[in-house]
C-alpha cells in the first residue's frame, strides 16, 4: 500500500467507516460524554415520566385528593414572608442557571482561542452561578420541609374552603395558610419532588466540582501544555445538560 503522502492527507479525506478514524470527527472523550448525556437523559425522563403518571392518576379526583397546585406551595420568596409570590423564586433560579450556562459557553469559546486568562475568569463566574443555584435550592427545600413535607406523606392536599380562598388570591397578596385549608393529598407528591429536584441538584453539585477541577487545571497551565482546551468543552457539555434538565423540571414541577 502506498504510504507516501500520509502526512499531507487530512482527516476528512479518509474514508469514513473504514476504521482508524472517528466517523463523527470528534475525540473519544467528547463522544463518550455525549453518550453519557444520552443515558442520563433517559434516567431523568424516566423520573419525570413517573411523576407524570402519578399526577395523571389524580386528574379526575375531587378537589380534596387532587394533585396539589404548585402555586399553593412554592409561593415563597426570601425576605418577603407571608406574601403569595408563586413562580418568582424559581424564575430567579432559572435565570441564575441560564446565566451560568452563558458564562460556561463563553469559557468554551475562550478555550477555542486558547486564552487562559479568559477561560479561568469565565469558569469562576460559572462556579459562582452553580453555587448560587445550589443555595437557592437548599432554601427552597428547607422551606418545603419546614412546611411539613415528608417522603411518606403529603400534607399539601387542599380542602374546599382552602380552594375557595386560594382561588381568589392575586400575585403579591398577603396570605397565611390556616389548618382548615389543608388536608392529606396524594402521597407521592413530596417524594417525587425530592427525588427529581434532588437528583438534578446532585448533578449541579457534581458539575460544580468538575468545574472547580478543570478551572484549577486551566489556571495551572495543564491545557496550555496539552495544546488544546477540550476538557473545558467536555465539562461544558455536562453543565449545559444540567441546564437542559432544569428547563424540564421547571416546566413540569412549577409551570404545569
Amino acid at each position, binding site marked *: 500500500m502506498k*504510504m507516501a*503522502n*500520509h502526512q499531507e*492527507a487530512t*482527516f476528512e*479525506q*479518509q*474514508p469514513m467507516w*473504514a476504521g*482508524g*478514524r*472517528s*466517523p*463523527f*470527527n*470528534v*475525540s*473519544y472523550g467528547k463522544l463518550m460524554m*455525549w*453518550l453519557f*448525556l*444520552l443515558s442520563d*437523559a*433517559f434516567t431523568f*425522563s*424516566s423520573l419525570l*415520566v*413517573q411523576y*407524570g403518571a402519578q399526577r*395523571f*392518576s389524580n*386528574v*379526575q379526583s375531587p378537589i380534596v385528593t387532587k394533585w396539589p397546585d404548585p402555586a399553593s406551595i412554592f409561593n415563597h420568596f426570601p425576605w418577603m414572608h407571608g406574601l403569595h409570590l*408563586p*413562580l418568582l423564586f424559581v*424564575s430567579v433560579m432559572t435565570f441564575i442557571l*441560564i*446565566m451560568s450556562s452563558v458564562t460556561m*459557553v*463563553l469559557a*468554551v*469559546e475562550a*478555550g*477555542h*482561542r486558547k486564552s487562559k486568562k479568559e477561560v479561568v475568569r469565565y469558569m469562576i463566574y460559572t462556579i459562582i452561578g452553580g453555587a448560587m443555584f445550589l443555595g437557592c435550592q437548599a432554601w427552597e427545600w428547607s422551606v418545603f420541609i419546614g412546611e411539613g413535607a415528608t417522603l411518606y406523606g403529603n400534607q399539601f392536599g387542599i380542602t374546599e374552603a382552602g380552594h375557595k380562598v386560594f382561588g381568589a388570591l392575586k*400575585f403579591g397578596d398577603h396570605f397565611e395558610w390556616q389548618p382548615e385549608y389543608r388536608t392529606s393529598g396524594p402521597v407521592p407528591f413530596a417524594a417525587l419532588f425530592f427525588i427529581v429536584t434532588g437528583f438534578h441538584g446532585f448533578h449541579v453539585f457534581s458539575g460544580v466540582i468538575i468545574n472547580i477541577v478543570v478551572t484549577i487545571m486551566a489556571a495551572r497551565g495543564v491545557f496550555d501544555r496539552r495544546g*488544546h*482546551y477540550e476538557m473545558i*468543552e467536555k465539562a*461544558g*457539555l455536562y453543565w*449545559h*445538560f444540567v*441546564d437542559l434538565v432544569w*428547563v*424540564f423540571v*421547571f*416546566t413540569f414541577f412549577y*409551570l*404545569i
Partner: protein
Amino acid sequence: MEFYTKPGDYDAINYIPEAQSHGTKELWRTFWILLGITVLDFIIYFVMPHTGFRNFIFIFFGIVKAYYIVGAFMHMKYEKINLALVILVPTVFIIGLVMGLLYEGNALTYAK
C-alpha cells in the same frame, strides 16, 4: 483509496479536531432568546387560565429552549450530522414512554 494502516500513524483515540471559535455573537443571541422565553413563561402563567392549552404552550416552549441549548450552547449545530442523529434519534423512545405512562396513569385513577 488512501488511509493509514501503520499503528501510530494515526491515533484515533487521542485525536482532537482543531477547535475553531464561532464568536460570541450567537451565544448572546441565544441567551436573550432563552431569557425572553422564560419571561414569556412567567407572563403566560399569570395571564392565562390553567388549561390544557396553556400546558401545551409551556411544553412547546420547553422544547424550543431545549433546541437552543443543545444547538447553540452544546454546539450540536456544528457537529457532523452522524453524531447529531446518534444522540437525538434515540430520544424518540422517551415520547413513546410518556404517551404510554400518561395513559396508564389516567387509568390508575379507577384502580385506586
